[in-house]
């Protein structure tokens, strides 16, 4: 089972109400390479991956939910005091018409999250390569958002998340090597 802790993984601060940045950030909430996709991808792959990497998928998948909560906190803090007029100016008029200030799992362009964003091939190498690619894509997305953001407090949190993608990618690469080594040990008759 899972256990909630009343604490963010890393402190989230924003300088000011800024719905324009929130619109971009939602990419990492409900986008193809966002944190929801990551968490669901890894935790779903666990059931059919070799025992040697189940722990890693469980732990990284769980950490992704902590990142999802950080993104949600950023979006919440960037939009909670925005007027409907400000949301409209930020390109969030269509979002407001449907959701008010509620968060929703869609990407920066408004496309709703879909399970087709995540793969589960049942082949451990195929799955782990997908995971490595996903981490690299998420790292790149964080960089593009940082490039557009002028909020130093927000960027501090985004840089933390960007670095986590780098570490996860590294661990997944090690998992591939572990499986290759296991494969080499197997005896074929």
């Amino acid at each position, binding site marked *: 089972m899972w256990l909630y*802790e*009343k604490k963010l*993984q*890393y402190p989230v601060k924003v300088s000011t109400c800024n719905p324009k940045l929130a619109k971009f950030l939602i990419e990492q909430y409900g986008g193809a390479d966002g944190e929801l996709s990551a968490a669901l991808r890894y935790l779903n792959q666990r059931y059919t991956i070799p025992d040697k990497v189940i722990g890693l998928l469980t*732990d*990284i998948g769980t950490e992704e939910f902590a990142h999802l909560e950080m993104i949600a906190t950023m979006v919440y803090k960037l939009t909670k005091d925005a007027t409907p007029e400000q949301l409209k100016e930020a390109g969030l008029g269509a979002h407001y018409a449907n959701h008010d200030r509620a968060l929703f799992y869609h990407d920066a362009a408004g496309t709703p999250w879909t399970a087709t964003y995540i793969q589960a091939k049942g082949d451990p190498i195929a799955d782990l390569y997908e995971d490595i690619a996903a981490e690299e894509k998420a790292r790149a997305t964080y960089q593009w958002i940082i490039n557009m953001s002028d909020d130093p407090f927000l960027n501090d949190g985004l840089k933390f998340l960007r670095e986590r993608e780098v570490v996860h990618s590294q661990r997944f690469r090690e998992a591939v090597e572990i499986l290759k080594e296991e494969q080499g040990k197997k005896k074929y008759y």
Partner: protein
Amino acid sequence: MPKETLPEEFYRLMEDLQTIDFVLVELTLYLDTHPEDLEALKQFNTFSRRSRDLRQTIEARYGPLLQFGHSYSEYPWAWADPPWPWQM
């Protein structure tokens, strides 16, 4: 406890806990792929104890942090009280 009354100390202690728990997340992922690294394992156990001790200090002053009975509750039931992490 209403968030207006959260003192500076709360944020300082929480940041200390976030720091210690980050070390534990990092060591956990590292140990998942390096299970025989004894030095890393010793660090893990050291920080695990530090995390537990600091969490108890924070909970005694500011209420439960962990769900489903992994933290004690004062009377009345304190778990469901704000502030939640995004409200801090």
